[in-house]
Every structure is written in structure tokens, then in C-alpha cells.
């Protein structure tokens, strides 16, 4: 894990950019998954590539299936997108803000006082 506080200025800027990029990607992936799931009608089952509805034949009164191509995001893919999103956010925490040297010395003093 890189400690940005001990890195030269160029590298700490790089860390901040990576962290921001990771969080943005995490946000985009998480939101995309959620939006697709909401658009699909909060489907609580597995993902589907077709949707089957039932119609009734007027003459015989028989119920019959009508299948049409329609992608519906299921909970397993929603879970996967949220997991990837969470993972990227977690990874972004590894690229911490460089802490100021004066704060570091303060912390050291208080520890020695104890």
C-alpha cells in the first residue's frame, strides 16, 4: 500500500488522481447497475434475455405464452455490479491523502507523552 505522505509531490498527485478515477468508475458502475435494474422493473429473479407474457385465445379460451426479446437485469448481475463498484471504492482507499508532516509530528508527540 503506497503511503502518499512519504512520496514525492508528483507521486502524491498521481495517487490522488488514481483515487478519484477509481471512485468515479465505482460510481458509474454502481449507478449503471442500479439504473438498469430499476428500468427492468426491480426484477427479483435471475437475468432474462426474453420476457414471456400470457395471452388468451379467443376461440378456445386457452392461455398461451408469447415470448419477446427483452433484456431484464437480474439480482445476480446487480449484485455483481455493486460488488465491483464496492471493490473499486475499497481499492481507492489504498490511495490515501498525503497527511501533513506537522500533524504527523503532533501525533508522535502525543504518543510519547502517554
Amino acid at each position, binding site marked *: 500500500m503506497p503511503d502518499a505522505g512519504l512520496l514525492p509531490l508528483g507521486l502524491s498527485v498521481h495517487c490522488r488522481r488514481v483515487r478519484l478515477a477509481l471512485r468515479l468508475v465505482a460510481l458509474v458502475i454502481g449507478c449503471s447497475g442500479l439504473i438498469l435494474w430499476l428500468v427492468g422493473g426491480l426484477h*427479483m*429473479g*435471475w*437475468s*432474462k*434475455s*426474453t*420476457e*414471456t407474457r400470457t395471452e388468451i*385465445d*379467443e*376461440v*378456445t*379460451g*386457452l*392461455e*398461451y*405464452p408469447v*415470448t419477446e426479446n427483452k433484456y*431484464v437485469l*437480474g*439480482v445476480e448481475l446487480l449484485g455483481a455490479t455493486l460488488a465491483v463498484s464496492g471493490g473499486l471504492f475499497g481499492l481507492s482507499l489504498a490511495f490515501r491523502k498525503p497527511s501533513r508532516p506537522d500533524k504527523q509530528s503532533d501525533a508522535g508527540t502525543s504518543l510519547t507523552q502517554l
Partner: protein
Amino acid sequence: MKRLYKSKLAWALAIAVAPGVLNAGPIKFDFKDPKKVNNVVFLLDAPLESINGTAVGVSGTVTFDPAKPAATTGKIVLATSSLHVDNPVMKGHLLDEKWMHASKFPTIEFIVEKMTKVKTSGTTTTATIVGKLTVKGVTKKVTVPVRLTYLKGLLIKRNRVPGDLLVLRSDFIIKRSDYGINAGISEDKVSDEIELKLRVAGAAPH
């Protein structure tokens, strides 16, 4: 002259009506349905959501006598490749070797041998079919409830040709372990019992 016309008209009417009158006897109904209304729904219980599939590749013939419904015999055939579930991965598994092995066993067959406990009320007959069900090459004797509705002369409304319709509805349960459908495997994920709903109509043009 007028009398001659009248008698000719009477003969013409008699000839036109005759097939309907002479039809009193067994009628052969063809269950092949290009409109794909004939269908079988299958349900299997599973933890996240029940597996709800359909199949529309129905064919076969049933001989039905409105005067003697107990004498009904016939065969309903279902194309295994027409089995459908909305999840593409699940459909792949369903048709593969472990489950239905559609390439080796292209049809599911239901033979009606005899009917018992027959009760007729108007156009509807309820009964119990004693027959043979063949799934994945395994044939088992089955006894299933059935409801038959004889719709005389209604084929013209459906197919634009004169004739009769026979609607057959049956709900029953089979066990996949009985037919070697991935028997004994993943029963915690997919139930052993398969609920089947048969909804088919046969046509008998005059």
C-alpha cells in the same frame, strides 16, 4: 317447375348438412398448431425464483367420440427443442446432456390409452387419463386428470375452415428422478417435482 327447384334445394341442403350428421362417431383431431397457441407450461421450485418455462412444439392426434368420450385415444408429442426459459444460461443447461438431452431425445410423448372416471356436462368432459409418458427415453405409466371441451363447428372461427375443435387441459406432477433428468443432483437448488400444465387444442376439419 317451382317444386323441382324446391326439391333440388332440399337435396342440396341435405348434402351440405350430411357431413355434420354423419360425423356422429369418432373424430380425429390434429394437434399440430402453426399459431403456437398449444403449449405446455412447466414449473420447478428453486430457491431464488421458481423456474417457469414453456414449450410450444406440440403435435399429435387424438380420436374423440362426443357420444363415447371414454373411448378417447391418441398421442400428444412435444418437441424437446421447443422448451424455453427466459434465462439463456438456464435454457442452455435445460437442453444439454444432464437435463433433457434434446439432441438425443428430440421428443416427449404422451400416449392416451384409456379414460376412466368420465363425467360429461354439456360440451365439457372431465376424466382421468391412463396412459404412458415418455421423457428422455424413459417410459412410465401415468394417471392424470384431464378436462376436454368439444367445440363443435368452431374451427371456422379459428382457422377459417369448417370443422370442430377439441380443447384438452391437464395439470399434473412428475418427478425428474423418475425420468433420469439430472436425477438426485442439485435437488436443493431445483426441486425433484416438475409441475406440468398441458393446454392444447386439436382441429378436425370437415
